[in-house]
């Protein structure tokens, strides 16, 4: 057989396969739709989890090396400003910075904001820099004012100087950055107390030792290292990924049952078709090839539709369908502008878990019918 005639033969078989599929349009279309939806749901979960993990891992490299909290009766309490110098004197610590931050509940928008004083605030007193989520829920823009209720009962206005870029929303959406004076006016308290102290330790191998020394110097305090922060997020994403997979695996299993039932049990009509093909002189291998092509066309189409749909959903649609799960009870949630980070291995696993079993499942019953006597099959 010349290569040309071999190719023509394959094309003819493919023509037959597609015509055969087109004879049962509703059934096959429904199958592809459900199949694609399952792939879409699982792939969306994979893409979102992987993108969030990559974002967190990359960005948290810039988090403080050690954060020192004072504990009072087991709860986080303010720390004396005098401790900053004591901590800065620990060998291996390059800088120690007292940080002021806290939470502000806004009854008007029912949102919780994170109020912070940056080490070097680039605005003046009475000015604020806000995250894109704050601008959205408070409906304020650059140049407009935001009225704040201080803990003393007085109200005062801050002018919005800047809205932080939407690309950083995953970290900054609920931030309200103020000058130190505005922060103290809002929450009260004196300049001699900080919320916590951030330490900069240039040598990463010394971080755990520095944390130990902090605990010796300030017994009863808590030192949170950057490694611990990364580990917290690692466990959150592992847990969440596992949870999503556990939920989706039931859908996957239900689909597997349906697909197996559909693919493994040939209808009387399909058996008759195979019998006729055998009777008019088709080989067993031809029948198997046609069935294999049928399975590959259906599962390939469903996988492509599902995977491309999931990409569009997560990276262009900001994972809108998962938003209610991510938001929980919070009024203020970031609009996700995720940078695509796709784990090829996970995608390949999904491919092999969906396409290969389905295609294989179509072949076994076809082989059984094709090897039987055509007369018996058609009867």
């Amino acid at each position: 057989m010349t290569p040309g005639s071999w190719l023509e033969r394959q094309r003819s078989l493919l023509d037959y396969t597609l015509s055969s599929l087109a004879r049962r349009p509703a059934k096959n279309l429904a199958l592809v739709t459900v199949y694609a939806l399952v792939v879409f749901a699982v792939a969306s979960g994979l893409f979102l989890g992987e993108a969030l993990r990559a974002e967190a891992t990359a960005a948290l490299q810039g988090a403080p090396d050690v954060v020192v909290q004072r504990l009072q009766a087991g709860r986080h309490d303010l720390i004396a400003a005098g401790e900053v110098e004591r901590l800065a004197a620990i060998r291996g610590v390059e800088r120690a910075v007292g940080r002021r931050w806290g939470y502000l509940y806004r009854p008007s928008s029912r949102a919780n904001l994170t109020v912070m004083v940056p080490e070097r605030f680039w605005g003046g007193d009475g000015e604020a820099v806000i995250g894109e989520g704050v601008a959205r829920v408070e409906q304020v823009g650059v140049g407009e004012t935001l009225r704040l209720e201080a803990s003393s009962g007085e109200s005062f206005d801050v002018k919005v100087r800047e809205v932080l870029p939407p690309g950083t929303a995953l970290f900054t959406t609920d931030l309200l950055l103020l000058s130190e004076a505005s922060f103290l006016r809002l929450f009260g308290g004196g300049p001699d107390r900080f919320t916590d102290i951030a330490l900069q330790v240039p040598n990463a191998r010394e971080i755990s030792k520095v944390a130990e020394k902090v605990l010796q110097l300030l017994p009863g305090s808590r030192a949170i290292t950057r490694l611990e922060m990364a580990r917290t997020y690692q466990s959150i994403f592992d847990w969440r990924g596992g949870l999503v997979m556990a939920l989706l695996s039931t859908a996957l299993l239900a689909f597997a049952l349906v697909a197996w039932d559909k693919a493994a049990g040939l209808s009387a009509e399909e058996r008759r078709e195979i019998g006729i093909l055998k009777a008019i002189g088709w080989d067993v291998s031809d029948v198997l090839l046609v069935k294999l092509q049928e399975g590959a066309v259906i599962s390939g189409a469903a996988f492509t539709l599902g995977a491309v749909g999931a990409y569009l959903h997560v990276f262009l649609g900001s994972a809108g369908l998962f938003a209610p799960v991510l938001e929980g009870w919070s009024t203020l949630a970031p609009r996700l502008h995720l940078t695509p980070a796709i784990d090829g291995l996970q995608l390949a696993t999904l491919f092999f878990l969906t396409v290969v079993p389905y295609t294989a499942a179509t072949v076994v019953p076809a082989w059984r019918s094709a090897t039987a006597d055509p007369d018996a099959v058609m009867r």
Partner: protein
Amino acid sequence: MRPSDRLLIALLLAGLAAEACWLHAAWRQREVDGHRAAAAIVRRLGLTDLALFTEARYTRHPTQADRFAPFQDHPGALEHFPSGSVVGPPVAR
């Protein structure tokens, strides 16, 4: 047109769609320069957490929460927020 020709066209379109996703991913990575913008603001402000869940202290800053969060109001308090069922406890190592 033969059915196999139509399949070939569909395959080409699927390939183009996958290629478009690939190019879009590469373009987005270059446009935002990886995660540099987020990393820069995290470094500049000394941030410790993702602003994914803002409803409670321990969901906004899981890394800075009390050791016994979310049961911080009194021992044995019921979990208040749905996120708590999604965010698992950190693994002790």
